[in-house]
C-alpha cells in the first residue's frame, strides 16, 4: 500500500479551465486548497464581526445595541461559523495544499470527491447563514444545540440541522480523501515514520472526523424528529432524557476540539524546527503522543457535564481520564521547547506566531486542567472562565498557527516574499491584544460572571471594558493579514527563492519544488526524501 508513481492522463488538458468554471469544476488539490483557505479567511471575518457585536454589547453593563434574542443567536452563530466555517476548513485547505507536496504525490487520491467536499462546505454554511434572516431569528441556544431549549428555535431549526448534515458530509469526504492519500499516494521511500508531522497529525485527525461527525449528525437528527415527528429521545415524559443529548453531543464535541488542535500541533512541529535550525526533538514521541491524545479524546466527553448530574462514579472517572490528557500534551510542549533549546533561532513572523502558540496554548491547557477537577468545576462551569479557556486554545493556538502557516507557505504558493515588517507588526498587535481580550475573562469567570448573557452586574464592568477594547484591537489588526496576503500575491517584497527559508529543503519536500509551485507537481516521484525533521 505504499508507493505510487504518477503521470498525467493524456486525454485531458494540463492547465486549469477558464474563468469561473475553473473553480467550479477543478479537481486540482492546489485550486481546492486555495478555495478552502480563501473561504475560511472570509468566514474568519464573518465570525469575527459577530464576536465584535457581542463584545460591543458587553462593553458596558446594560442593554446597548442588540436584543437579547439576537445576542444569543450571535454567540451561537459566531461559534458555528468559527468552528465549522473558519478553523476546520482552513486546516482542510492546508491539508489539500500541503499533504500531496509533503509526501511527493501528484494530487489527492480522490480528486472529484475533493471538489465535492469543498462545495458541500459552502452549501452548509449558506444554509446556516440563511437562518439569520428567518422568522424567529437564527439558532440561539448555543453552538451545542442543547434540548429542550433548542427545540424552541423558530423557523431556523430544520435549516440549522440540515446545515450540520451538509457540513458533516463535507468533513467526512475530506477526511476519507486525506486517509486514502496518505496511505496510498506516498512517494517511494516516504515511510510512515518519515512523514512530516503535519501529515501524521492530519491522518489522525481524519480518523477522528470520520468517527465523530456521523455521531453529531445522529444527535441533530434526533432533535429533528423530536421536534417534527413526535419522537421522545430527549423528553422524559416519553421515557427519553435531555441529558442523553449532551452525552451524544459531547461524544462528538470533545474529539471535535482535537480536530481543531491536532493539525495545529502538526503545523507547529513543521515550522519550529526550520527556524530553530534543528531537527524536531522526539519525532517518534510526537507521533505517539498525537495518537494517545486522539484515543483519550473518545473517553473523556462527560467532563463537559460535571454539573448536569451524573452518578458519582461517572464524575470521578471522567475527572481522572481527562487529567491523563495532560501527559501526551506535556510531551508535545516539552518537545517543542527542546527543539528550540540551543537552536540557531531566527524570529521571522511564522516563528513568532509559533512561539506565541507554545506559550499561550500551554496557558489554555492549564486552565483546562483546572476545570478537569470536577468539584472545582462546579464553580467555573458556564462562566467566563470557560470562555477564556477555550479561546486560549482556539485563538492564540489554532488561529495563530493558521496565520503562521500562511506566512510560512505564502512564498511557496505565490512565489513572492511577504512584507516581513508588516508581518511582525501583525504579530505583535495580535499577541498583545489577544491577551488584553481574553486574560481578564479568567477573572470575570472566577468572580462568577456567567457566559452567554447580554447584560451583567456592575461589578464586572471594568474587566469587560478592557476585554472589549482588546477584542476591537485584535479584530482590526487582522486586516493587516488580508493586506499582506493581497500584497504578496501581487509581488510582495520580491521573488522568493525555491527554498524560501534557510536550509528548508532539508526539512520538507515542498521546499525542493520551484516557487511558485507549478500547477502540477510530483508527476514523477521525488528522488530523495528529506529527513532533517526526524
Amino acid at each position, binding site marked *: *500500500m505504499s508507493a505510487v*508513481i*504518477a*503521470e*498525467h*492522463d493524456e486525454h*485531458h*488538458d494540463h492547465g486549469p*479551465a477558464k474563468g469561473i468554471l475553473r473553480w*467550479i*469544476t477543478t*479537481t*486540482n488539490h492546489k485550486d481546492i486548497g486555495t478555495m478552502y483557505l480563501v473561504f475560511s479567511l472570509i468566514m474568519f471575518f464573518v465570525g469575527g464581526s459577530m464576536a465584535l457585536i457581542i463584545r460591543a454589547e458587553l462593553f458596558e453593563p446594560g442593554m446597548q445595541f442588540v436584543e437579547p434574542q439576537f445576542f444569543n443567536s450571535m454567540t451561537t452563530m459566531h461559534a458555528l461559523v468559527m468552528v465549522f466555517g473558519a478553523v476546520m476548513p482552513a486546516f482542510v485547505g492546508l491539508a489539500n495544499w500541503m499533504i500531496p507536496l509533503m509526501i511527493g504525490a*501528484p494530487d489527492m487520491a*480522490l*480528486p*472529484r470527491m475533493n471538489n*465535492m467536499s469543498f*462545495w*458541500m462546505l*459552502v*452549501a452548509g454554511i449558506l444554509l446556516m447563514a440563511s437562518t439569520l434572516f428567518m422568522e424567529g431569528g437564527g439558532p440561539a441556544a448555543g453552538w451545542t444545540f442543547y434540548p429542550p431549549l433548542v427545540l424552541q428555535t423558530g*423557523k431556523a431549526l*430544520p*435549516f440549522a440541522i*440540515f446545515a450540520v*448534515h*451538509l457540513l458533516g*458530509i463535507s468533513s*467526512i469526504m475530506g477526511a*476519507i480523501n486525506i486517509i*486514502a492519500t496518505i496511505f*496510498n*499516494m506516498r512517494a517511494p521511500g516516504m515511510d510512515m515514520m518519515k512523514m512530516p508531522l503535519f501529515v501524521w497529525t492530519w491522518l489522525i485527525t481524519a480518523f477522528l472526523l*470520520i468517527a465523530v*461527525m*456521523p*455521531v453529531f449528525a*445522529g444527535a441533530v437528527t*434526533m432533535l429533528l424528529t423530536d421536534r*417534527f415527528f*413526535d*419522537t*421522545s*429521545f430527549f*423528553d*422524559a*415524559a*416519553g*421515557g*427519553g*432524557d435531555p*441529558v*442523553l443529548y449532551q*452525552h*451524544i453531543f459531547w*461524544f462528538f464535541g470533545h474529539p471535535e476540539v482535537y480536530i481543531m488542535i491536532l493539525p495545529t500541533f502538526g503545523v507547529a512541529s513543521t515550522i519550529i524546527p526550520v527556524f530553530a535550525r534543528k531537527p524536531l526533538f522526539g519525532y517518534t514521541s510526537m507521533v505517539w503522543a498525537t495518537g494517545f491524545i486522539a484515543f483519550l479524546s473518545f473517553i473523556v466527553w462527560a467532563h463537559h457535564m460535571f454539573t448536569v*448530574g*451524573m*452518578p458519582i462514579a461517572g464524575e470521578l472517572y471522567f475527572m481522572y481520564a481527562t487529567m491523563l490528557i495532560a501527559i501526551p500534551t506535556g510531551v508535545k510542549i516539552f518537545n517543542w521547547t527542546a527543539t528550540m533549546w540551543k537552536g540557531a533561532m531566527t524570529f521571522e513572523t511564522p516563528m513568532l506566531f509559533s512561539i506565541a502558540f507554545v506559550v499561550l496554548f500551554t496557558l489554555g491547557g492549564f486552565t483546562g486542567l483546572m476545570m478537569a477537577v470536577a468539584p472545582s468545576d462546579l464553580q467555573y462551569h458556564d462562566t467566563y472562565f470557560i470562555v477564556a479557556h477555550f479561546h486560549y486554545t482556539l485563538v492564540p493556538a489554532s488561529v495563530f498557527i493558521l496565520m503562521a502557516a500562511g506566512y510560512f507557505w505564502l512564498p511557496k504558493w505565490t512565489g513572492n516574499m511577504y512584507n516581513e515588517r508588516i508581518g511582525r507588526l501583525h504579530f505583535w498587535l495580535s499577541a498583545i491584544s489577544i491577551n488584553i481580550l481574553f486574560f481578564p475573562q479568567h477573572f470575570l469567570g472566577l468572580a462568577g460572571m456567567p457566559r452567554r448573557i447580554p447584560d451583567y452586574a456592575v461589578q464586572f464592568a471594568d474587566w469587560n471594558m478592557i476585554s472589549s477594547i482588546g477584542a476591537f484591537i485584535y479584530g482590526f489588526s487582522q486586516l493587516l493579514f488580508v493586506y499582506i496576503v493581497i500584497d504578496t500575491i501581487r509581488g510582495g517584497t520580491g521573488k522568493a527563492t525555491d527554498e524560501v527559508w534557510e536550509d528548508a529543503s532539508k526539512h520538507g519536500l515542498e521546499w525542493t519544488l520551484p516557487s511558485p509551485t507549478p500547477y502540477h507537481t510530483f508527476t514523477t516521484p521525488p528522488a530523495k526524501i528529506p529527513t532533517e525533521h526526524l
Partner: protein
Amino acid sequence: MSTNDTYYVPHKAVWPFIGTAGLMMMLAGFANYLNGSAIGPTMMIFGLSLFILMLTGWFALQASESESGMYNHSVGISYRMGMMWFIFSEVMFFAAFFGALWYTRNLSVPWLGGIGDGPARATKDLLWPAFEAAWPTNGPAEVGGEFEPMGAFGLPLLNTLILLTSGVTVTWAHHGLLAKKRDQLIKGLIATVALGFLFVGLQAFEYYEAYHEMGLTLGSGIYGSTFFMLTGFHGFHVCVGAIMLSVILFRSWKGHFTPENHFGFEGVAWYWHFVDVVWLGLFIFVYLL
C-alpha cells in the same frame, strides 16, 4: 513508465457541484416543508432530480472510465479505502442510535423509575412518583397511548433469514465473477436484489401492522422512537443497497468487470454485508432482548 504505473488524476468534473446543489436544494426544500411552507415539496422534487441526474451522470462516467482501463491498481486501492472508511462512518451513525437505545434502556429509564443515583431520579420524585421502570416503555406520561411491542419471532426472524441468505448469494456471485462464470454472477446478483427488495417489502408490511394494529408509532415514547428510527434508517440503507446492487447487476449483464478489476462490485458487496451486520445488531438489541 508503463500505463500500469500511472495514477489517474481527473482534471475537470462538473458532477460534484451539481450533486451538491441538488442535495442542498433537497434539504432546504425539506426544511421549508417542515416549516409548513408551500414551496417545500417543489424544491425537494427539483433537488432530488438534480441529485439523481448527478448520480447517473457521475456513475456512468466512472463506469466508462473504468471499462476503458484508466484505473490501475493504485486507483483501485484508493476507491477501496474510500468505501471502507465511508462504511465506517455509517457504522458510527448507527452507533449514535444504538447508543441512545442503550442509554435509555439501561440508565435513564431505570433512573426515572427510582433505581440508582442518576440525574433522572429527581425527575421521578418531582413529576412522576408512581412511574415504574420497565422496557418497552412509552414513558411516565404514556406518550402516544397504549401499544403492543414488536415481537422477534415471525416477520423479523424471517427477515433475518432473508438478509443472511442474501449475504450468501452475493458472495456466490462474487465467486462467479472471480471464476469468470458470468452466468453464476448474474444469477447470484438477481437473487440478492430480489431478496433485498423482499426484505424491504416485509419491513413495510411490519410497519403497516405496527401502525394499524398494534398502536405502535414513532410517537410511542422512547420505545417507538428507538424502534422506528433504528429499523427505519436500516430499511433505508437496504433500499439504497438494493438499488446499487441493481446497477451492478445491470453492469454485469452488460459485460463489465473482470476478475482483476471490479471495484464497483466489491464496494457494493461490502456495503451489503454492512447492512446485514447492522440488521443482526437490530435483531438482537431491538427485537430479541
